[in-house]
């Protein structure tokens, strides 16, 4: 590393940390910087939450968070705004999300078990295929999938949104689980096998319970992705009574005139609430998942 002569620099840098730095001061500056950044970053969302409780005419009255009075009327009028029906949309979103999560958990975990633990012909090739699909832009399959689901008369049903998850199309989650299962000690499987357990029982009794962190992460990310998904419902759901929350919000936004954003904000806040709620419950797990596998 050193390229200079050995004598002088040694003398100069014996106590390199003697620089005049006050640890308390730097800590304070660091925290202040972080908090500043956080406030600026999250301010639009905080403002939106505050605005959803403001009377309609005060929403665009400046940057402040507080209005003359606190009101829930935005929530009441947004929930049943015109032809839109948010109780319906929330139910629909919930249904699609639950079915997608279930599908992803079943399909991804059994696929991951096979890749992580079993030996079989063409394993390398199939695994390469799996990794390849992780980089595949979804637009390439979007048009033919639409045509396929159209032929099956699945348009205006939830099947196009849910069924692919049951076939493990989310390669990312399979990869996540493979990586996780690989870290589990193989001795457990071996001893179970000696005790006479078959592959399915090793999977369900040993691997599955131990892989709960990876399964939880998958469930959480599937929840977020499905709940937020806009393009899928946009393609497949045309009838308003089938809409999910993102479609409802988008239609609401287009129908809203410049002066009536209160109800829109109220519904936006409600649409984000489940995600944030889940995150608060599970943030440690989720962030470990991001850090170890690079999920977005």
């Amino acid at each position, binding site marked *: *590393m*050193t390229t200079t002569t050995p004598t002088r620099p040694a003398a100069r*840098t014996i106590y390199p940390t003697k620089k005049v730095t006050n640890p308390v001061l730097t800590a304070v500056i660091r*925290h202040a910087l*972080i908090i500043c*950044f*956080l406030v600026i970053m*999250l301010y639009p*969302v905080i403002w*939106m939450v505050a605005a959803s409780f403001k009377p309609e005419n005060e929403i*665009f009255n*400046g*940057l402040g968070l507080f209005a003359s009075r606190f009101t829930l009327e935005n929530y009441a009028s947004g929930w049943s705004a015109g032809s839109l029906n948010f109780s319906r949309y929330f139910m629909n979103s919930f249904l699609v999300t639950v079915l997608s999560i279930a599908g992803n958990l*079943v399909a991804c975990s*059994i696929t991951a078990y096979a890749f992580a633990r079993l*030996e*079989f012909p063409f394993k390398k090739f199939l695994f390469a295929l799996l990794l390849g699909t992780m980089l595949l*832009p979804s*637009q*390439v*399959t*979007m*048009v*033919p*999938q639409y*045509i396929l689901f159209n032929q099956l008369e699945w348009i205006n049903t939830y099947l196009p949104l849910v069924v692919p998850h049951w*076939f*493990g*199309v989310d390669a990312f989650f399979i990869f996540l689980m493979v990586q996780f299962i690989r870290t589990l000690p193989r001795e457990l499987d071996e001893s179970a096998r000696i*005790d*006479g357990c*078959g*592959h*399915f*029982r090793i999977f369900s009794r040993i691997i599955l319970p131990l892989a709960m962190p990876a399964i939880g992460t998958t469930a959480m990310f599937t929840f977020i*992705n499905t*709940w*937020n998904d*806009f*393009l899928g419902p946009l393609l497949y759901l045309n009838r308003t009574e089938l809409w999910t929350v*993102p*479609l409802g919000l*988008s239609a609401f*936004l287009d129908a809203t005139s410049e002066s009536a*954003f209160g109800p*829109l*904000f109220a*519904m*936006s*806040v409600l*649409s984000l609430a489940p995600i944030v709620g889940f*995150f608060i419950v599970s*943030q*440690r797990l989720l*962030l470990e998942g*991001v*850090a*170890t596998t*690079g999920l*977005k």
Partner: protein
Amino acid sequence: MSDAPAAKELTETVRPESLGTITDDGPRSARQTRRPKSRIMKSKTREAIAAYVFLIPWILGMILLTLGPMLYSLYLSFTQYDLLSDPRWVGLQNYTRMFTADPRYLKSVAVTLVYVAISVPLLLIVSMLLALLLNRNMKFLTGYRALFYLPSLMGASVAIAALWRLVFGAQGLVNQALAIFGIEHGSWVGNPDDALTTIITLTLWVFGSTMIIFLAGLRQIPKELHEAATMDGAGAIRRFISVTIPLMTPLIFFNTLMGTIHAFQSFTGAYVVSGGTGGPADSTLFYTLYLYQRGFAQLDMGYASAMAWVLLAVLAAFSAFFFWTARFWVHYGDER
């Protein structure tokens, strides 16, 4: 839907194994007529069969929902197809039309390239800077980390895109904040010169996941390396360039690759902010948004398929090139 394969697994995998258990017990196994068969069948074969049973859903999905559609989409890209009448073979016409007779297509390419070229590097820089700031054992670290991650959960939602459209509107938060400093600015969303900026800020806002990956990497850099460099007289910047960056190159590589692929496909932000039009003046006409308009609004599915294949080719070429460059700048630890 998947009950069927699951049940199949039960019958196919559990039964031979339970036979095996009984075999170990000796005489009782005589009852089992299939015993010799299961003994003859090598455990390797059984393992392979079990594996393929486990893989049934995935392989079906691979064929029916990924590879099959890919090939069909390649075929469609050489046809004219509107979903109502049969596809009509037109050869390379879709591809030539894209590059010679469709200014909106070229505009969408330009918009997307500008967007990727600006948003991805900025995203990496912001993520790295904040990861460095958070890379200390300090109070509230998990809390900060969680708050920084919060936008990543919401960034893809319609709610946030809708909020962005208002925040950058004529009387939105941004202009009200600028007004405090005496700066007058019109609507960002409504101005062709600024609309893309709006969506880039939305992308940057969602830097949390990238930052957390960097932070995890920074935490794994052995302290001794920094201490040794300090002893050698390296300052903070020198240490960052000579110690931190080289050790972080695998993660920089990963984040750049995923960020770029992701950015090329971004859709919701542009759709919601522009009301589905890609406007004003096509300034936010992202590639995927134009593809959507072509395929699903104008039912020009052959053309949309051709666009998808061009995107795939570009991303594949980019990925291959990027993987090739990795050998020159990505340093893996000694163990690899």
